[in-house]
């Protein structure tokens, strides 16, 4: 490692490309095309469909996210995402809690930073389409979001100064930031690169999508039944988890139970004096939901079937008592279950068809900081191919 460091320093000093030097990718990630302005734009079959903005449906139009990044920004973000160099003591990376092998979540009820946090780590698949971030929607952009775990004393514990210092102290990063931005590393540029990388995490080619594009054989009979119940007006799942993204990015109160430690999370209600937001959370995407158990903002449910059973029971049945929750009108079981048991199983089965991890990024085999990364090696790329 020392040798590598020395050679990297030498390289930085000489400004010459050595064999060891990391070259940032100048090609866009798979499923993106390079535009003339040098940025990468997502290409999806959904862009070929016609519908007004924000319409849902099976063949609804998806516009590529308006914010675009260069191939090098995206690639730099990939290194940063997996590199614990950003955290205060060099032990925690974004991937510690957003592990690609676990659907960019961590398999826990609540994420663990320096101690257990109050909420679960959400998936990052398709995160570029959102217009608000976090369970309570408190961040408006990915750049703004990235600063939150970085500088939270409960998570990565860094400061903008410590991030900048650590990156500038790593010769490889001086070179990489130079390649991507033509500048020395700054904390702000690190956030941009992280956002760039996250915007490449696209999952729109599941078996469900093949069905949507016209391949009737892509789903089993049970999955088709499940989809029909999912979009039907007893379950109403698709009214909030709207296809094709399987979310509307809106805040909604569904009446979630307190977590297993009795903690009641006010969600967006804690940030607003609007009483109707008490207990409201951002509708999460259901893409790759098979990969991210347990479910809900603090892991209240272990399986998808339990989630569907929750929705199928009397509205508000599990909600903390004594709170004037304004549960969303589309959560509407007024007197116990109305979906048949078969519907419940079918919906849970359908949700598995939303799995597609073909565009999983390559985990860097070597980190520019030369630190050890602490995510499992080896990609979970098989998921999308079943």
């Amino acid at each position, binding site marked *: 490692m020392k040798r590598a460091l020395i050679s990297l320093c030498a390289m930085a000093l000489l400004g010459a490309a050595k064999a060891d030097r990391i070259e940032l990718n100048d090609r866009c990630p798979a499923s993106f095309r390079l535009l003339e302005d040098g940025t990468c734009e997502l290409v999806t*079959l959904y862009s070929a469909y016609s519908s007004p903005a924000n319409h849902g449906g099976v063949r609804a139009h998806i516009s590529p996210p308006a914010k675009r990044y260069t191939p090098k920004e995206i690639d730099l973000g990939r290194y940063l995402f997996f590199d614990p160099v950003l955290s205060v003591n060099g032990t925690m990376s974004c991937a510690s809690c957003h592990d690609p092998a676990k659907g960019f979540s961590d398999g826990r009820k609540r994420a663990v930073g320096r101690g257990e946090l109050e909420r679960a780590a959400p998936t990052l698949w398709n995160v570029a389409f959102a217009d608000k971030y976090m369970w309570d929607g408190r961040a408006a952009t990915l750049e703004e979001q990235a600063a939150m775990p970085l500088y939270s004393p409960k998570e990565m514990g860094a400061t903008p100064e410590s991030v900048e210092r650590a990156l500038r102290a790593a010769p490889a990063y001086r070179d990489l930031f130079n390649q991507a931005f033509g500048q020395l590393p700054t904390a702000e540029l690190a956030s941009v690169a992280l956002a760039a990388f996250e915007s490449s995490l696209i999952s729109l080619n599941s078996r469900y999508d093949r069905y949507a594009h016209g391949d009737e054989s892509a789903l089993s009979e049970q999955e088709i039944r499940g989809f029909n119940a999912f979009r039907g007006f007893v379950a109403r799942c698709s009214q909030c988890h709207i296809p094709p993204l399987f979310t509307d990015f809106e805040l909604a109160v569904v009446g979630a139970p307190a977590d297993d430690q009795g903690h009641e999370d006010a969600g967006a209600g804690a940030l607003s004096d609007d009483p109707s937001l008490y207990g409201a959370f951002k509708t999460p995407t259901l893409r790759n939901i098979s990969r991210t158990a347990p479910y809900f903002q603090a892991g209240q449910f272990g399986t998808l079937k339990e989630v569907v059973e929750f929705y199928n029971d009397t509205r508000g049945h599990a909600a903390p008592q004594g709170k004037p929750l304004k549960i969303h009108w589309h959560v509407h079981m007024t007197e116990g279950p109305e979906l048949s048991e078969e519907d419940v199983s079918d919906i849970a089965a359908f949700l598995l068809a939303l799995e597609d991890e073909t565009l999983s990024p390559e985990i860097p085999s070597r980190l520019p900081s030369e630190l050890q990364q602490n995510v499992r090696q080896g990609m979970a790329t098989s998921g999308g191919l079943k």
Partner: protein
Amino acid sequence: MKNQNHLKYAFVMLPVLLAACSGGGETKQEAKQEESAQASASPEGAAGPREIVVEEGGSIQAAVNEAKSGDTIIVKPGVYKQSVYIDKPNITLRGLRDGDRWAVLDGETVKNDGIIASGHSTVIDGFYVKGYKGNGIMTQGANNFQILNNHVEGAFYGIFPQYGRNGLVKGNTVTGSEDAGIYVGMSDNIDVLENVAYGNVMGLEFENTRNALMARNHIYGNASGIALTIVPGLPVKDAYSQVIKDNKIEKNNIENFAPSSSIAAGVPSGVGIIVVGPDDITIENNEIAGNDNVGVLVTDLLTFGLSNDPKVDPYSDGIKIMKNTWRDNGDNLSGMLGGMIAAASRSGVEILSMGKDRDSCLLAEDGVDALGVDQWTACDPSMTKATFDTAMIKDGAEEPVYSPEQKGRLTYLAVCTGCHAYDSVLHGPSVESIKALYADNPEGLVQYAANPVRKREDFPEMPAQSYLGDDVLTQIADYILYDLGE
């Protein structure tokens, strides 16, 4: 597929079909055509639209699965205890009617929804739909749809087009809906014409809908006749340009029976038209009579008590009420709304405005009895929509047109590159190696992509890409073999 043997298909060319289904009493003639058509139908590659007939007791879904874009499915009179889902474009689903005998879809109060269609240009015509726990007839994201001449009874929403661009809802009868009989949600360019709605919580509703027309409908005996709303917290954040004309809106006074969970539970009864939040609304030349609390109620989201959405303008602006006929409205006050009107020592109110609406107007010469309209102005007669006869798009909503090359490239990028990198192994072999394997053999490449077979032990299986169609695959093959890397 179990049901397939219940189903008798007849493949008839379109002209024959048109002849066959105009007017009643040709069952025999049809049957004859069926036989001859069946005898001559070539199952593969039969070009042109076909007619598929579902005999009483057969599976409508099996016919939908069999149908191709452009086909018409004729459902014979009889009872069908089924749900139907249509996820392909240009399918016409037509129920035949023989006097009182309809093609009945019966959910027996155990099934979820009657019909859900997502395909563009779906036509749903002539069904008697009853006994569903969810909706009677729903479209989701279908453009250019038509929902015609159906009778829907006792659903949550009777007829509910959602996320549609350009659609027609005409000649239907809806009753017993726990919310709106006909509910147009988050849609654009919709005509709702000549329907009958009675015994619903609300007769007809436009929610977060833009450019829409409601005309010549008969709306009576609901809790509330027509609702024009903007609902917060939905992905579509506005509602505007709606024309409500030539309707008969009478005696909408029944008790509101919506479940307490729904927004509809907050709708007052005894109201002809309730406006909550949309902009640029014309209410013209309707007959509004016998609605016990008020003829037209204009309010806003805040007064109505719906949650705040920072992206939604909660006020009803630009409401134009002109040239309507008013009779006996507001004469039998009841409930909270009636109490409020009574508290103002008024009755017989035709128009009540309760919000902070701007730019609304009345036609002075109408001499309507109105309350809360101090800030309203006089409508200019030139605002009339008397000659406005459709909100639909003249030639239909178009799909974007791509040249075959564009489609090929787009699909290559959107689908193939997820597994095939140009010069390295991703999930499948590199495109370079594919180019070498299929040099000057685009047909071979198309064949493989459409029906992949296992070749490499250590690779996963490639999913068949036949759903993309041969044309697109051919373009992709040409692109890979002749353009890429050149």
